[in-house]
């Protein structure tokens, strides 16, 4: 801590350390990590339940649900990855990878 700091700033830094050190110690304990794991699982499970209910509602109305859109996006991404892979293979053959452009 620089010596020429005003008193109020020194006090804030001391206070921050007084609170911060025990907090940092707490968030490095197994108890904390186990709690975060549990909270994450509960949140996912709750999200899954809500998603299931809303899916049934949308499907009853003959409309696509969020999960359908997600599945569609995943499939599109798979197709796009395959296309990218093929275009890379073509680039390998034609050695077309020396594109230049100024960016900064």
């Amino acid at each position, binding site marked *: 801590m620089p010596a020429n*700091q*005003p008193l109020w*700033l020194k006090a*804030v*830094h001391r206070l*921050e*350390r007084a*609170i*911060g050190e025990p*907090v*940092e110690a707490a*968030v*490095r304990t197994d108890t904390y*990590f*186990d709690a*975060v*794991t549990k909270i*994450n*699982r509960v949140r*996912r499970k709750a999200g899954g339940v809500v998603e299931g209910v809303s899916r049934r509602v949308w499907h009853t109305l003959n409309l696509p649900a969020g999960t359908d859109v*997600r599945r569609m*996006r*995943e499939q*599109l*991404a798979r197709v*796009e*990855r395959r296309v*990218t892979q093929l275009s*890379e293979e073509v*680039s390998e053959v034609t050695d077309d*990878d*020396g*594109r*230049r*452009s*100024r*960016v*900064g």
Partner: protein
Amino acid sequence: MVPTLNPIDLVARINRDVERSLLRARNGVRYVRGTHRPKVGATPKEVVWRRGKAELWRYRNGTVRYGPPVVIVHSLVSRSYILDLRPGNSLVEYLTAAGLDVFMLDWGVPDELDADNDLERYVDFYIPRALAAARRETGQPEVTLAGYCLGGVMAALYAAAHEDAPVRNLILMATPLDFDEMGAMVALLREGRLNPDELIDDTGNVPADALYSGFYMLAPTTEVAQKATLLEHLWDDEFVEGFQAMAQWARDHVPFPGAAFRQLSELFVRQNVLTTGSMRLGDRRVDLANARGNVLNAMAERDNVVPPAAVEPVMRLVGDPARREELRLPGGHVTFGTGRGARKVTMPRMAEWIIAHSDELAEPEE
């Protein structure tokens, strides 16, 4: 004894305080409104190679007097502009000003298309092709390969896995090998806790927010002290600019490709394979001792993201023992890119080591 203040000093002090108060008010308004953001990654550069979202940038900042070129492989979790944060506080700018030819292998911002990117994709596909492009650009047969954080792990694996790797020097900056020493950063991924798939979202990647939370929780209250320090220095344009640039980078994480994340969790965190000195990559075993080139293991002594204990095994595992050197630097994880210590110690010592292991070019290149 109470110090006496003569009237001239008193007036000067009042003037200074009034002036600073006005500057504080002006900068405070700018800060709150989010205007006047500093320009980051400002060293002029051009893209010389591109595959998917990966790009190889060549920096142009004066005469190139030394070879081979320096190719920096950035990490997968953060933005590469930390190494070129702002003019006057940039490793890239410093190295180029010292006469080195600097390239950056930047991974961009991964999305659904990158979810399948595994370590093999980076080590066996992107890095060799980017290095070939750097050699083609410069006409140099070799490179100085520098990896930052996880980029260092990939650089070391590449240098060890490829018999024909054209690596004269291998620089590992804050490169973790012993993941048991990574502490809180990886504790959630240990056996019996979170499954990596529980952190991967619909895009197939670990969202940037999850990574930010991981870093934030390392020191959740320091932001208060930082903001107080900012308030005190709010009159100082340069301080405010540096603060904003750093704060922007600290929040600016990128999604982590799912496939590579699964490997990192299983192989690096749960099995801690890198401490054995070898690992399976694709269809072969890679022995880190086979890494080509002179090895510089650069670590920051107060790094709380990749603590020195996680980095130290480099000195007994990577490359030829006779060609390994260690560089201990003051400061934290970002000392490689920014900060007072970076400008005074890190950048000069890095440049010095690289130049000592490079050749002076017969014909300097503009």
